[in-house]
């Protein structure tokens, strides 16, 4: 398990990660979300010891990464698919990793097969597409059969088959009891695979909860109700603490109340219902809701700055 406590990274001009405390659990895919400059990559690099925290720590099985006996068996990471020697082939890249980590050569071939790089295994990496580099990065992350897998934007550059393959792979890894941390801007992909979501904005932890809890807490989620006595039902629901918005003569949107309870209140008040349906927000809507106004880099900000000038 990865334990992150009060992790902070300050640079002269900004705080990249601010007092971050969280655990990364086994057996679940955790989506790691946040706008550009939120501190996701900095956090991932601090987990791997590439960046020293200004304050706080990251422990993997109660030790910092650099103190682990066989680190590649604990954490496998894809931080940057371009972090390769372009003159090497995929087989050479993985052989280097296997040699340094004392792994068998057979493991190299297994990873090449797993990531579908058999045909390109001996070509120089400089001839690879970005998607192929992503596959190689994933092969490198998995070569030590680690307990925790960290993937930074792994869906970037993958084709439809690649996305399906990675989706299945991450879910299989979680089913095998491994902790999988996936950062991505493709909310749809994270929604498909993640059981838990961590959201960062401006270096701070905005949300750390499972998907079910996140859906419930969201303002974007509501229950759509259709009745010919909308005003009467509205009063009844509001008296029980629900937030209700009229959406036309016979339609209302209800927030902060379970669908079952709405049905019961309507029943008790003898109000006929023609529609009672739960509207689930997409992860993208939830993400937008949570990070609104906390982006470091957005097209609006740029526009505003231009206007200020």
């Amino acid at each position, binding site marked *: 398990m990865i334990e992150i406590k009060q992790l902070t990274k300050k640079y002269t001009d900004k705080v990249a990660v601010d007092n971050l405390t969280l655990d990364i659990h086994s057996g679940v895919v955790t989506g790691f979300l946040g706008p550009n400059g939120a501190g996701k990559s900095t956090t991932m*690099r601090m987990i*791997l*010891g*590439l*960046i*020293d925290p200004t304050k706080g720590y990251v422990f993997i099985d109660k030790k910092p*990464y*650099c103190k*682990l006996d066989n*680190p*590649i068996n604990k*954490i496998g*990471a894809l*931080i*940057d698919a*371009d*972090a*390769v*020697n*372009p*003159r*090497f082939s995929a087989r*050479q*890249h993985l*052989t*280097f*990793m296997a*040699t*340094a*980590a*004392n792994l068998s050569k057979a493991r190299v071939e297994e990873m090449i097969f797993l990531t579908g790089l058999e045909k390109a295994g001996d070509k120089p990496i400089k001839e690879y597409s970005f998607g192929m580099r992503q596959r190689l990065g994933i092969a*490198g992350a998995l070569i030590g059969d680690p307990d925790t897998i960290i993937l930074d934007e792994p869906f970037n550059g993958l084709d439809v088959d690649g996305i399906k393959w990675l989706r299945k792979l991450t879910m299989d890894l979680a089913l095998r009891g491994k902790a999988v941390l996936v950062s991505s801007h493709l909310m749809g992909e994270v929604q498909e695979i993640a059981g838990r979501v961590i959201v960062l904005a401006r270096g701070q932890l905005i949300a750390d909860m499972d998907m079910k809890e996140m859906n419930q807490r969201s303002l974007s989620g509501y229950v759509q109700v259709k009745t010919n006595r909308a005003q009467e039902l509205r009063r009844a629901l509001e008296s029980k603490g629900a937030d209700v918005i009229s959406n036309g003569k016979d339609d209302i949107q209800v927030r902060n109340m379970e669908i079952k309870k709405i049905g019961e209140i309507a029943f008790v008040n003898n109000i006929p219902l023609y529609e009672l349906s739960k509207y689930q927000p997409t992860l993208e809507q939830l993400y937008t809701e949570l990070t609104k106004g906390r982006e470091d880099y957005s097209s609006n900000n740029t526009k505003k700055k231009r206007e200020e000038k």
Partner: protein
Amino acid sequence: MISQIKAEWKKLMFMNFTKIYLLILMISSLLLGITFSLTTNMTQGRALNELPNIDVITANLLGIDVGAIMLLVFTAIIISSEFSTKFIHVVLAVTPQRGKVFFAKLAAFGIFSTCVSLIITSLTFSCGQFILYINGRDMVSLADGNIIRLLAGCMAMPIFYCLITVCFTFLFRNSALSITCSLGIMILPAFISWFDEKIQMVLLPLLPRAALHSLSGISELGTESISIIRSTISLLIWLSTLYMFALWNFKRKDII
């Protein structure tokens, strides 16, 4: 540690660039050695047949200087590219102990430069012997202690400059700066020789060139001549000082 050194060695040997560059390095050393020995009437004011046998060999061995320069350029390019391509992320993900990574790199380049140095020393020496032979002169004997000392000293030079370049590249993470510093140390004695003899007497013996020339037995008497023990200690001090600075910097700075 052995597995890290093995991995670093494999990394060097994987690349076609290494093989091509090595071939060019060897040919250049050999050709420039021949050029130096055939142009002594211009460089030393004496024709080849007026020179003692040992000087003919020494002129050929100057080709090793070219090999040393090419080797340090190669070292800086290869190591700095790990930082510029971010391949160092992969290296540190597998071996997060930065001291281990640095030492493995130093060991791999130490072995590599020893092999290269042995080859170019053998080539340039053999070429010198061949020139003596075709001019109908006696070849020098390897049983002669002075010749062995000369060859050993010449062989030490590419190894030393390669190792300090490893340190400079870890210190600066930049090939241009590392090459400049290594070359700077190599040619510093030429600048110092512009100064007064008193200053030369103080500074020249402290520089690696004095140690390397003294090891080879070709040092200029008075200004740079030091004993073999002092020479060895001087080279070790240079190397260990740079090693410590580079290690401190490599451990201290973030890898972004």
